[in-house]
């Protein structure tokens, strides 16, 4: 064919052309090759970093988006915990965490309306507590499974202890289940104290009654004012600022365990919704609740949602085990 073109210049003859028959001639310069170009990634310095961080560039992903995912590896580690899975899956799919709204503790004349007001996102349930350490039942219990974010915010703002900022319109339409499980009450298992009579802790808004000291006898009796710190063992705690003042230095190995309230809480959400099928709250979504003779309930047959999920899980079982 090539030699024919060379011989005939810009025209050549076709041996066969369907119904058009023999002897048709075509102008080579008029033949169009038509198609759709495919994205092709060029390996560059960001891919080098990706090799080190075990994070490949997604098909067609530009440098700026890839760079953000690379940074995210340092900020949000992926592992087998709830958070780790959420971080890892969100990142690997090229999605991003976002903050749909903020939650702040409501105050009157500068004082919180509740003693230890807390909000908890736990599976489909959202619970608001007036005092998380004392109360046996929450002030509000919301089922967010079928709610939008905007609907959830409206429901939360019924509370007299906390308030949520109104999300922007587009985010408000998203499912409330996109909000990750989290709590405004955080537990610090151990924080070292400096060998000084004044210690400013890393966190503020400490929860009263949650403090426990170890490795020291400098904090045995809590007093109401800094001026009352007049004898060994006496100490003053400013819960709001996280400041500890003691009569004597706590020594070199002193540590403190405490809980604190995050205020305001920047709520974290992800387009990825992780369900814990072992979780009590989600099991209620997967199975019918059956009333027993003693008045309690037990899990019964799977709901339509539960059936779908079980079938889905069974379908990937073979893949997981290489079958």
């Amino acid at each position, binding site marked *: 064919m090539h030699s024919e073109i060379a011989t005939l210049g810009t025209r050549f003859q076709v041996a066969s052309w369907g119904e058009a028959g023999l002897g048709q001639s075509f102008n080579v310069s008029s033949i169009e090759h038509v198609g759709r170009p495919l994205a092709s*990634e060029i390996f560059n310095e960001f891919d080098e970093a990706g090799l080190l961080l075990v994070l490949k560039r997604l098909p067609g992903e530009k440098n700026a988006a890839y760079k953000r995912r690379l940074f995210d590896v340092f900020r949000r580690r992926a592992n087998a915990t709830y958070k780790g899975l959420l971080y890892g899956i969100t990142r690997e799919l090229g999605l991003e965490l976002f903050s749909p709204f903020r939650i702040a503790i409501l105050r009157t004349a500068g004082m919180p309306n509740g003693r230890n007001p807390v909000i908890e996102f736990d599976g489909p349930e959202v619970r608001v507590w007036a005092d998380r350490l004392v109360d046996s039942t929450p002030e509000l219990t919301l089922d967010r499974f079928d709610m939008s974010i905007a609907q959830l915010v409206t429901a939360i703002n019924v509370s007299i202890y906390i308030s949520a900022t109104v999300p922007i319109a587009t985010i408000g339409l998203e499912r409330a289940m996109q909000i990750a499980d989290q709590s405004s009450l955080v537990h610090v298992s151990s924080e070292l104290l400096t060998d000084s009579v004044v210690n400013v802790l890393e966190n503020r808004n400490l929860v009263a009654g949650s403090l426990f000291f170890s490795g020291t006898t400098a904090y045995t009796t809590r007093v109401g004012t800094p001026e009352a710190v007049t004898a060994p063992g006496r100490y003053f705690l400013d819960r709001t600022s996280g400041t500890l003042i003691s009569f004597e230095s706590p020594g070199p190995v002193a540590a403190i365990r405490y809980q604190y309230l995050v205020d305001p809480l920047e709520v974290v959400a992800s387009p990825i919704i992780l369900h814990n099928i072992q979780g009590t709250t989600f099991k209620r979504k997967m199975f019918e609740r059956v009333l027993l003779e003693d008045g309690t309930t037990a899990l019964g047959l799977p709901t339509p949602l539960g059936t779908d999920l079980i079938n889905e899980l069974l379908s990937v079982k073979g893949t997981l085990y290489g079958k």
Partner: protein
Amino acid sequence: MDEQSLGYQLLNVVARQSDDLWRQVAQQGMNYFVPTANLDDIDVVYKFRLARSFNFVPSEDAGGVVTFRYPTVTGRIGTTPYTIASTSRNNIEDFWYLALPNRLTRGAVSTGRHVIVAAGTSIGGSPLLNTDATVFPGSGVPYIPSRLWVTLAGGTTYLSSRDNIPLRGLVRLTGLTRANVLDSELIIFLHDGTQSTTKEWQRIDRVDIHNIEPSGAIGDPRPPATIRIEASRFNDGPYEDFYNFEHSKHSKELHPTFLNVRSYTNSAGGALPVLEKINYIVDSFFSRISEDPGVLPTGSTLIDREVVKRAELLDEAGVVLPGVRDMKVQPFSTRIWVLDTSNRVHIYDRYWHYPNLGAATAKNYDANCFIEVLSHHEVLNNDLVLEFFQGRLTKTPVRHRVYLQRPDGSKAVISETGTLDVWSPGGGFVFTAPVGRILRTPATVRLSQRGDWIFTLEVRYADNSSETDQRIVSVESKRALRTLDLTTNGFPAGTYTGLSFDSDQKLWVLDVAGTKHELVPHYDVMLVDFNKKIIFFREPFDQVSVVP
């Protein structure tokens, strides 16, 4: 330094190449680290594999070398066709790094604020609670990913001590970072100036300022220092940032120089849109407290600025711009983007014109009598003052003449009174004796043409010897490599006032209403692999058609 001396010419032969090499090495160094790597590096291309039966049309160049002719290629996005151009050298540098955009589209639009704390805000109110924090930088609209620029002005004391503890001027920002983390950042100030944050922010909730005087304390009659915080710098030049840094790191000149655009009034009273190279005059105290040229104070008494060079700005067609509003240097490139008053953006290279001194054919570099000019770089219709001196009083000049050659080749004699007379090969000599070392009275010439003017001084001495000195003065102009009109490229009609690159190296343009529009350049170019029969594109076309 006389930039037309032999030594300067010798150095200048390698200066640009050396500077380019330094920039490339510096860029490679920055590419080692993810935070500083060049986001504009080649990343995703779109390739179209031709059928194996496809044959490129051979062509033979003048030297008899047989190559292939570039095919005629059209790309389509939807139903809109775009003609694809080939590159001059068909390599990656031309295809990616040196290609010029041939069209623009409007990308994201942000109506959020980019000014977090307005200029002139007193630090006396610290902590500054940004009451409008929820709408910075964008409430529901894409915000401009950016580091913040913090400017302090009017401060007199940044270093102090209390109870023998040294204190430094501090600004602490608290808010939500781009990574959706509640965080804070501390910036240390030692003097008035502008610094950028290291973090990218999407919301600032609180600004705390410490240890800066005057702080607006009760009883202090002094006006307090002021603070300004911006997420993007629109129309706020000159920009003392890394990418606008003119000198190479290893330059022996301590003075950093930066570029800016403005309207300049020339000697004829006309307003010229110009690009200026600005030199910062830095005193030794500054050198002691900071070696970082990116942290230059503005408005401080420590330093001053001077314009060392300027060039009139022309569009791609060679027509002078109607006016300029803003400029930005494209990161990791030699490109300067300029916004004019007709809502057009122009792309210039950052190279400065140096005249070909080979045109000074008659120049005697060791001439005893010589011309001196204040600057070898002027702009159109500026007046140039020429002075004439005798260096050593070893010989007696008996006659001399001065004449000029305009860029269009025409010549004129400069008379002793400064008027321009008709030039003739032997005419125009004057016979007045020098006064001391002054050969003759200075002359003023209005430079009425763009290009290189050659001034010549011919001197005949009593011993019948003669010398000639020549100076080339350039009337500078820069012609845009590309001019693109915003309103014909999909941007709404209106007035656009500023340009800014965000931290993703994307370009934004600000309109007079405060809305930011992402300016997306498009490159309809191709790279052809003739052997493997693959054509690479930069744009994600839905369909391409290729004709040999």
